[in-house]
């Protein structure tokens, strides 16, 4: 086996940038999951389905507006909103009544939602692969230090830190964020001082799911939109959240960074087993820090 023979500076640099844009998607999805896990303590398997639905809605909205700049930005804005509305209905209709159940039941319940959503997507959009064309402004390549780099990936790398600081602002500087963090630690106490915890929980759930939709919308132009993308992303998102520390936004960022980079650089080392590397890293991280690299809110 030509082990590591194709590692050159240029390839390494390029793969790092690819890994960073992958990190953005992973971080957006994982941070939403982490928020829901940290505050509501729901291991939300349906998060992956919402990501997939976000991607499919992105496809449809973009098609509706006839593509181009308008279609792209409308789709990127509308599809997370649509996903948030779906999640609001699910939370008020179903989860609201289940918060007291044990984790295993909640996990299975969200899995049942995954099954339902999976088939609904198949009914609405069919089982064909779909793809979204980027507006002309994002097509093509930039030349970074003499190496070609897709423009859209650069956009993703910019969006990542923006979302991260937005989330940090939301959880640390706003009233709702502070209440949510308090409720994560002691739900009953927060209720006892006269705050409607149920509404706060609904808000957190919807924000988390909004992020899943956003992740799906942003990933849509970079890959085939298809059945089964929900199963693939959710396990990665869970591992990232566990590795980073449950409920910790920066943990999700760190986890996504490690996951994205090991994946993209692993391709250079041993292409066939590239998907194995992130799992190995997660296992090693958890061997030494069983509760995650950063402090969890649990």
């Amino acid at each position, binding site marked *: 086996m030509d082990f590591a023979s194709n590692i050159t500076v240029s390839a390494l640099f390029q793969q790092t940038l690819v890994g960073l844009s992958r990190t953005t998607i992973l971080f957006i999805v994982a941070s939403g999951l982490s928020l829901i896990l940290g505050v509501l303590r729901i291991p939300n398997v349906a998060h992956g389905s919402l990501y997939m639905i976000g991607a499919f809605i992105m496809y449809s909205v973009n098609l509706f507006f006839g593509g181009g700049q308008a279609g792209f930005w409308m789709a990127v804005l509308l599809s997370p909103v649509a996903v948030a509305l779906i999640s609001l209905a699910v939370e008020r209709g179903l989860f609201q009544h289940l918060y007291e*159940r044990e984790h*295993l039941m909640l996990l*299975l319940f969200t*899995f049942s939602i995954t*099954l339902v959503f999976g088939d609904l997507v198949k009914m609405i959009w069919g089982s064909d692969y779909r793809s979204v064309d980027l507006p002309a402004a994002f097509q093509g390549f930039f030349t970074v230090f003499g190496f070609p780099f897709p423009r859209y990936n650069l956009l993703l790398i910019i969006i990542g830190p923006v979302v991260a600081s937005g989330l940090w602002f939301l959880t640390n500087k706003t009233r709702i964020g502070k209440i949510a963090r308090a409720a994560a630690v002691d739900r009953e106490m927060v209720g006892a001082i006269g705050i409607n915890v149920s509404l706060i929980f609904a808000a957190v759930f919807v924000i988390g799911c909004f992020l899943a939709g956003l992740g799906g919308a942003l990933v849509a132009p970079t890959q085939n939109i298809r059945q089964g993308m929900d199963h693939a992303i959710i396990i990665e998102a869970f*591992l990232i959240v566990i590795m980073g520390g449950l409920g910790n936004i920066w943990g999700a960022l760190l986890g996504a960074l490690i996951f994205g980079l090991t994946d993209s650089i692993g391709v250079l080392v041993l292409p066939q*087993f590239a998907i*194995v590397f992130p799992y190995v890293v*997660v296992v090693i991280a958890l061997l030494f820090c*069983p509760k995650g690299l950063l402090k969890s809110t649990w």
Partner: protein
Amino acid sequence: MVKAILSDSRALKAFGAGVAVFILLLFVPCFLPRFHVYLLGLIFTTGLLAVSLNLVLGLGGMYQFHHAVFYGIGAYTVALVITKTTLSPWIGFLLAPFVSALFSLFIGLICVRLSKLYFGMLQISLGSLVWAVVFRWYSFTGGDDGIHGISVPGIISSTSGAYYFSLILTVICLLAMQRIVNSPFGRSFQAVRDNPVRSEAVGINVKRLQLTGMVISGAFAGIAGSMFVVIEGSVFPELMFWTLSLEIIIMCLLGGWFTFLGPMLGAAIIVLLRTFVGIYTEYWTIILGFVLMLLILFLPQGVLGYFLEKFERSGMKQAQEEK
């Protein structure tokens, strides 16, 4: 044991019913069409897998989220021994539970330091690692295509042969697991589930007990995996994908995880549902999803658990009236 059964009229009835069902099942291939015989074999396999999961999940209260890995490893062990070596296929069947138990031991050693959700998530990551390797190692495991057309020994290659093989293995395994549940080990395992802190205080080594439970359960899952190869004649990485693991947990929940045979019933319901709903519509998972939702909302003790509860309550009422 015989004496205990004879002295207890309820146990005697249950034992008699078990023997009657077994004799009936022995003659099934004589009068049922081939497809139904195949389906029964599949139910035994899946059922054995679910019962083996329930050893740790229901009895031990451990969040065994990725049980399918041990099933898949059992299946792949048999498939690889048959296709890649010149050894007798029977060696593969003997090896399957040991290889699965070995993987269980490794994964268990890493996981049992944690508990509940953390335990489950770490297990999923380790299991996904195994899955990813199998999924990509084309030269050895066949990658995402899997291995097809595995030629099992002639005596168990026909539909009825495979059926008898799975029936007999299932019965042996169920009897063995029943013994384990009622052994001192099973009792202390249950005590750990109900109150780990107190169990530790009375001198039970909780972590070692949980590890032992995982190894035993993994070995039985490996046997179920080897039965799958005989029935289907092929293996593929989906056998150890995490969605299958959750499906097995659903089977345990559906049948009732505080009962011994409940998971078997749950597996039967799921296999039959998939087969017969699948004939009418391709959207069978949405139905499974709704069934599961209703189950969690209204019947969390499972089907068999529900009936047992009802049965016991009416029995208690009868006893009170007699007084």
